[in-house]
């Protein structure tokens, strides 16, 4: 299965079959699907706003990561209005709210998407649990798994 690690961006043309995004905690997985053509792209960002000068870091931040993913989808010939978006992740630890990187990540992802005129079709965000995501580009099915309890389709 094609694995997307922390801070990585990949599209389904990089490999065949389902894609997996493991260990999503405060990071957020932004998934873009083209259901008509059965392709998908995703990025697993881990920090809210980019303050790095390094190109390699752009896919690690919510603001730059979302824009790069969108650009990559468009490069593959997908029109904006054909994209279905699903968002997963953004858990936080207990305690001081000013450390809620997870919450901030989700906020920035939503803000940038809406600036781009894009709607989120489904999301499974927040809370304290770690998530694993399996994407089936052919059908557009996105499965969220937890360390405990039943998986969820969004």
């Amino acid at each position: 299965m094609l694995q997307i690690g922390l801070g990585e961006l990949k599209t389904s043309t990089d490999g065949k079959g389902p894609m997996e995004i493991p260990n999503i905690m405060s990071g957020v997985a932004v998934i873009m699907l083209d259901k008509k053509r059965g392709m998908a792209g995703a990025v697993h960002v881990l920090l809210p706003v980019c303050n790095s000068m390094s190109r390699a870091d752009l896919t690690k931040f919510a603001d730059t990561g979302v824009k790069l993913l969108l650009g990559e989808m468009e490069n593959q010939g997908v029109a904006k209005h054909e994209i279905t978006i699903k968002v997963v992740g953004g858990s936080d630890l207990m305690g001081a709210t000013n450390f809620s990187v997870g919450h901030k990540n989700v906020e920035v992802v939503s803000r940038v998407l809406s600036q781009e005129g894009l709607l989120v079709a489904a999301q499974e965000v927040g809370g304290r649990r770690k998530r694993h995501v399996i994407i089936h580009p052919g059908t557009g099915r996105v499965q969220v798994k937890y360390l405990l309890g039943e998986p969820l389709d969004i």
Partner: protein
Amino acid sequence: MPISLELKRKIVRSVDDLPPIPRVVMKMKELMMAPNCSAKHIADLVSQDQALASKVLKLANSPYFGVIRTISSIQQGVAFLGFNTLHNLVLASSLFGMYEKELKGYKMAKGALWEHSIYSAFAAQSLAESVGNKAVRETAFTAGLIHDVGKLVMSLYISEVFQSIMDLVERDGLQFLEAEKKLLGFDHAEIGSEVARKWRFPPALVNAIRYHHAPQLASSDADLVSIVHLSDAACLMMGKGSGVDGGYYPIDGLALQTLKMKEDDLQKLILRLTSSVNPAILEV
């Protein structure tokens, strides 16, 4: 229901069931503390242990350290890595066998504790380099590495009361640590500090483990304790080897103040960790 004395005794006895740190690793630390210790002294010790000697050569020649020429003698390897790095690496690889196991009680898959501990160790070292004094810089890696050692002991007992622990955490809003303590009489930080004592680690390390989830309770070694607390938190936020307990620990903002760090510095630490850690190098 009060916790039976028998259970508490059983848990304490399990601490003794953990294998000891290899003698040569402790001996190495002793030698390094001596004022006139040279690379030759350390190399002589390392050479007495065939397995350790080949480990040191492998590490010194790892591309991770950016060596250009081949290091072929132990003494060269010792000099190249430096005492502190050498000790860190040797300690880490001596823990690998114990640490790569699955911890069912915490729903940590095989390799998760190892990954979490290595990331925490590098995080602690990185923080210590910018905020710590010499003593803190020299112990931070080890402190990060062993902060969750108590989980090795507690996992089994947690499995036995797992549903009750999750009820306390999810329904009643307790921290995972509090739920451990409530149902088993000990938490993994307490038990971990017992392990560190048994392994004859210095008091600062015992404290760092004891208070890694509650740095405000430590009465000494505030810097090291705060460093380990924030390193752990960063790794949990990154999902690095975290188990079902991972989200149920508080992050203490005062730890940042103790270290004179800003909130943004925690994000910077997380960013550094994404590109500077390679857990595989120590699996030798």
